[in-house]
């Protein structure tokens, strides 16, 4: 049944349907409503989880290391500074192969302090060994949640996942959402049954130290698991479609890209605006399309090569910047193409940083620049709509 609810409530409801044993979180804007809703669901007896209100994001995720080692299904949510404070634990959770699911309500990082949306936080954490799925709208964030557990807890994967949703834009919006049915989620998502837990009857050591003779192999196994996740993410998205009838692509999705000359590649909520812009430009006869990256880690190299092989020019739009070298998605996409036959010009834009709106007009200007780049690249990367007058 469609209901008009806040994005954060919809996600909290989805988490409830996944029946986590332990929820541990620390409040930070714009994630707060998710954990407030979850704590209310616990207070009302609708969600039977251990809910810990802790002293920091660092502790929030550390608690889940202990619970996960006990075999618990675990959930947390954070953003921005909180994700940065978790940085050390992020590596630890993935290295210990703990299938924690965490919603990241994407937000900019300080300084300067800024509470609004961009994706610098999770893109900055691209190398920590977690899988990352980016949601386009609230429904997708909802649906990605049980999918995330199913992917993460698979014995072949055993890797934590961030479900990334744009802060405020998706967390605080009220829109019609199909809330999940718990019984259906139960049939879709099997119970978590880890092979190894802390058990006095069968004592095991978790978190040993590894010297140079074995450390590389731990990392290699994580790398392999992420490669296996490429197929698993597709498979789980299709299984979700069979149960719930909704599908947004597995690793990527496309919109009007088949015959497109200019293809925009992006992630997250800006896709709605881009689709509207594409509709306008298509009506004007411009062949513009979109490729949405849903899975940023693992990075879907083959799927992107296939989807973008016929484009005349590619424009990457992303809400992050790697200060000193372009931005994450742009660099990764170029890297994915380097040893392929694809020689399509690629340009990139850091857009919507610190919550600046990305408008249809902005998208149209990007497309104009892309057309120009198809005749010869003058710039590879720029800050979109830079206010030069205040520099």
């Amino acid at each position, binding site marked *: 049944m469609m209901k008009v609810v806040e994005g954060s409530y919809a996600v909290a409801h989805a988490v409830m349907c996944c029946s986590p044993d332990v929820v541990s979180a620390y409040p930070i804007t714009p994630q707060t409503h998710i954990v407030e809703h979850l704590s209310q669901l616990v207070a009302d007896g609708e969600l039977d989880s251990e809910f*810990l209100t802790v002293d920091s994001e660092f502790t929030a995720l550390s608690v889940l290391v202990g619970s996960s*080692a006990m075999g*618990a299904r675990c959930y947390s949510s954070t953003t921005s500074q909180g994700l940065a404070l978790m940085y050390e*634990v992020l590596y630890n959770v993935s290295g210990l192969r703990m299938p924690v699911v965490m919603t990241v309500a994407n937000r900019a990082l300080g300084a300067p302090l800024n509470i609004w949306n961009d994706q610098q936080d999770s893109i900055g954490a691209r190398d920590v060994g977690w899988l990352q799925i980016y949601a386009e709208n609230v429904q997708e964030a909802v649906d990605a949640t049980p999918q995330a557990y199913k992917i993460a807890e698979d014995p072949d994967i055993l890797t934590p996942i961030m479900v990334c949703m744009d802060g405020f834009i998706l967390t605080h919006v009220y829109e019609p959402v199909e809330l999940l049915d718990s019984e259906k989620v139960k049939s879709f998502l099997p119970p978590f049954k880890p092979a190894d837990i*802390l058990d*006095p009857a069968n004592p095991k050591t978790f978190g040993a130290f*590894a010297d140079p003779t074995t450390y590389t192999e731990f990392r290699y196994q994580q790398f392999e698991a992420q490669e296996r996740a490429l197929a698993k993410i597709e498979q789980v998205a299709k299984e979700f479609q069979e149960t719930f009838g909704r599908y947004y692509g597995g690793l990527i999705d496309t919109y009007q890209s088949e015959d497109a000359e200019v293809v925009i590649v992006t992630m997250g909520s800006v896709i709605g605006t881009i689709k509207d812009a594409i509709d306008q430009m298509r009506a004007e006869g411009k062949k513009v399309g979109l490729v949405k990256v849903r899975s940023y880690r693992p990075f879907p190299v083959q799927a992107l090569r296939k989807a973008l092989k016929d484009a005349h020019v590619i424009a990457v739009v992303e809400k992050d910047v790697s200060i000193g070298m372009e931005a994450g998605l742009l660099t990764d996409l170029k890297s994915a193409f380097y040893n392929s036959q694809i020689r399509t010009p690629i340009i990139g834009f850091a857009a919507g940083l610190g919550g600046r709106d990305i408008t249809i007009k902005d998208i149209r200007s990007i497309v104009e620049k892309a057309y120009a780049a198809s005749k010869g690249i003058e710039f590879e990367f720029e800050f979109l709509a830079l206010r030069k007058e205040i520099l």
Partner: protein
Amino acid sequence: MQNLLAPGHRACAGCAMPTTIKLVLDAAGPNTIVVSPTGCLEVTTTPFPESAWCVPWVHSLFENAAAVASGVEVMLKRRCQDTNLVVIGGDGSTFDIGMGSNSGMFERGHKITYVCYDNEAYMNTGVQRSGSTPFCVHTTTTPTGLRSLGNPRPKKDMPAIALAHKVPYVATASVAYPVDLRKKVKRSLDVNGPSYIQVNAPCITGWTFEAGTTIEIARLAVETGLWPLLEWVDGELINVKKIRRPKPVEEYLKIQGRYKHLFKKPDGADAIKEIQLMADANIAKYNLVD
């Protein structure tokens, strides 16, 4: 005595830490889960693929053992599982970098016994000063020199910090008093909430003393009044180990390399007097002598 820490671990000969662990595990028994922070304990007992631990054991990071243990504890409660849960960590993680994590665990009231094996500096990284390092101790980051007598600050009062959190069971113990240590661990495991036990655990490389004198040094710390053996229940001091005839602090200081400058430098004698005043203050405060 049941030995739940297997031999063959890589701790130094003369280290008090493995002895402390063995005593703690002997008191707790095999139905116990141990959480440890990064430190000497972790690197000497769990070089992959080996492990000295005969009970389930988990290590995550340097500063989060109490948080990890909190996550274990809620699952024990959720499953109504009657298993002891013990954190064993050094003073660096306990007094300094893990303080936020410890404070959170104390405040949330988890049923966890937190044992700090206190060797009074960052030994795993090569003897750097911690918040637990006593006054006038030479460490590699508070070295003695023309203008230095070593660590300029007294030791942080961690039991008082635990007590300020209304931790229902707080005790100090010593590796030199095994019966007392075992008794305190057992008592802590019956408490329905957090416990904090701080164990004096001399470090042979950091304190520099003759091999074979570890226990003697730990005993002298108690007999001088510098390390009183205390026990608080619900904030009330209920038990004090009495000293018959307190020994002068020189006897404790002079057999450790970390204090040797006090016996060579002209202003060392005044420092020794100050340390004696600290011992005397303990003796008076806790009524250590009948």
